[in-house]
């Protein structure tokens, strides 16, 4: 059901946690590498042993600033740290070091492609702050254990919490936002945003605005939805939840404020949301300033220095590719989604061969296909942009038809050689333009009936001339032959 057809307006805000790409944890030197055996990446500090103290990871702080700048937020010149106190076995200190009243970044926005394909939608950011992750608690149903098992490898990993304004208007928009955020954070080298590995987690706050007869609307109670494990799950969960809330409203008439905020978990198997007992019932986190960490101040110079490391961001790159190389928004999306190195490859290729659209087709189809098949990154791809450009120039110049060019391309991939070398190896003889012309002149002269048909408007008749040309010389470029013959015929009349 599209937005226009629903009997209600959906209001969604997201709370996203991303793990930062640092080598070590936020407050200690333990590795943040994913997948290690339980409790092999811990130390007295992240275990929260008696007497230990935290010390801030400089890179984590800088990545947080980078993110805030990229999201067009206001970076706090003075940041402080606070303790969020609650009890849970995966939180060994009994408190989480986070930021409460002075987060590192306030405000900002991320523009995402509009659902209807026209332009962009601006999604507001409320705040971005830095905090430490908790460990993992695992419940082994199979073994019928009465215990939960606690692994502290993850405890102390740096997290960025990004809270959006409730600006998202549909579950699809929510998914788009996450996709765009992931792209941005990948480009910034801030986070992998890989939900399967847990480096991105998202909770959603959703409610409905249901129009009333007098032109006003009534808001339903806000529900927090948790436990969504993929971007698609986010879309499905929120779609389900929106409809559920509407039905609930029709049944109970509950408005915002009538009942306390509910937490519901998404059940991937059953494809429904279920009420969840919140971890800390009516949580009183007793925030107070973290005495073990001194504040952080940042000067204008430092901010500019960090701003200079952002690099060109996805939205800018898309625009630039479209204007500079005359390609479509879709094309630029595909290219940008592959990362900076791929963008660089494309640009060099487009410049080298002089045809942005052709370059775009080739990278999206041939190059990307090959990369996927061979599980290569663009950095590992054996055909340099310059070499591929040479090949494409030959296609543009008529020396090779597309079919042959693909063969040459395949050879270049296998042999890591230039276009010229590949052509030679394959024994493709390039027919030069002069010879081609002479051939065409001969054929035109020898086929007056075909010429007459073409003149009469039957363009397809030219196919016979092309067929004859091929028989005479298998190396001809059929498209070029067709062009030249048509040109000759037109000149006649």
């Amino acid at each position, binding site marked *: 059901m599209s937005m226009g057809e629903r009997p209600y307006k959906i209001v969604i805000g997201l709370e996203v946690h991303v793990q930062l790409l640092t080598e070590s944890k936020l407050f200690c030197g333990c590795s943040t590498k994913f997948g290690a055996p339980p*409790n092999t990446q811990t130390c007295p500090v992240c275990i929260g042993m008696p007497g230990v103290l935290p010390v801030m990871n*400089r890179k984590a702080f800088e990545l947080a600033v980078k993110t805030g700048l990229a999201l067009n937020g206001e970076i706090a010149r003075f940041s402080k740290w606070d303790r969020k106190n609650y009890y849970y076995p995966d939180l060994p200190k009994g408190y989480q070091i986070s930021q409460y009243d002075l987060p590192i970044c306030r405000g900002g926005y991320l523009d995402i492609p509009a659902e209807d394909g026209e332009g962009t939608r601006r999604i507001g950011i409320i705040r971005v702050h830095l905090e430490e992750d908790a460990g993992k608690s695992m419940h082994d149903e199979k073994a019928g254990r009465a215990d*939960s098992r*606690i692994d502290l490898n993850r405890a102390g990993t740096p997290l960025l919490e990004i809270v959006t304004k409730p600006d998202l208007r549909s579950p699809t928009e929510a998914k788009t936002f996450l996709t765009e955020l992931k792209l941005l954070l990948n480009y910034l080298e801030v986070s992998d945003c890989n939900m399967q590995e847990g480096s991105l987690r998202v909770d959603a706050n959703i409610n409905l605005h249901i129009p009333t007869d007098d032109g006003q609307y009534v808001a339903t109670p806000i529900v927090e939805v948790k436990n969504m494990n993929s971007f698609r799950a986010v879309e499905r969960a929120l779609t389900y939840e929106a409809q559920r809330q509407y039905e609930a409203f029709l049944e109970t008439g509950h408005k915002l404020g009538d009942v306390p905020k509910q937490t519901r978990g998404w059940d991937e198997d059953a494809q429904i949301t279920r009420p969840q007992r919140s971890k800390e019932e009516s949580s009183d986190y007793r925030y107070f300033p973290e005495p073990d960490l001194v504040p952080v101040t940042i000067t204008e110079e430092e901010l500019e220095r960090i701003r200079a490391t952002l690099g060109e961001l996805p939205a800018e790159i898309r625009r630039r590719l479209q204007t500079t190389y005359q390609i479509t928004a879709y094309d630029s999306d595909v290219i940008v989604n592959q990362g900076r190195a791929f963008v660089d490859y494309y640009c060099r290729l487009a410049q080298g061969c002089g045809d942005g659209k052709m370059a775009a087709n080739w990278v999206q189809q041939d190059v990307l296909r090959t990369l996927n098949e061979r599980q290569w990154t663009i950095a590992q791809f054996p055909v340099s942009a310059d070499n591929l450009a040479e090949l494409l120039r030959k296609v543009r110049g008529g020396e090779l038809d597309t079919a042959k060019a693909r063969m040459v391309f395949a050879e270049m991939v296998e042999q890591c050689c230039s276009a010229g070398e590949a052509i030679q190896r394959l024994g493709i003889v390039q027919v030069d333009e002069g010879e081609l012309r002479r051939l065409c002149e001969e054929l035109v002269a020898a086929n007056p009936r075909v010429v007459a048909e073409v003149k009469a408007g039957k363009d397809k008749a030219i196919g016979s001339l092309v067929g004859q040309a091929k028989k005479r010389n298998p190396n001809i470029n059929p498209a070029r032959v067709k062009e030249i013959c048509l040109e000759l015929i037109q000149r006649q009349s």
Partner: protein
Amino acid sequence: MSLTRQEIEKVALLARLILTPEEVDEMTGQLGRVLEYMALLNEVDTEGVEPLAHAVEFANVFREDRVEKSLDREIALANAPHRDDECYLVPAVLGDV
């Protein structure tokens, strides 16, 4: 400033303590008296006074993003009251994800 038994019970839960009825009584009285004394601070005019959260004046203390050797798992778990060979164990937390 008199505390009710109910408030004491609420604070005890927040502090993850469990008090016997006698302790609740005793605590209500003792804490009540102490809090009464704390009310002395209301005499002080702190309008426009910045809180002093840190005795040291400096800021910006960092460590570099370098990996250091973690504790051997056996050593890390050595003090754990209840464990299996890899993890700490606690009574099952329902609704775990």
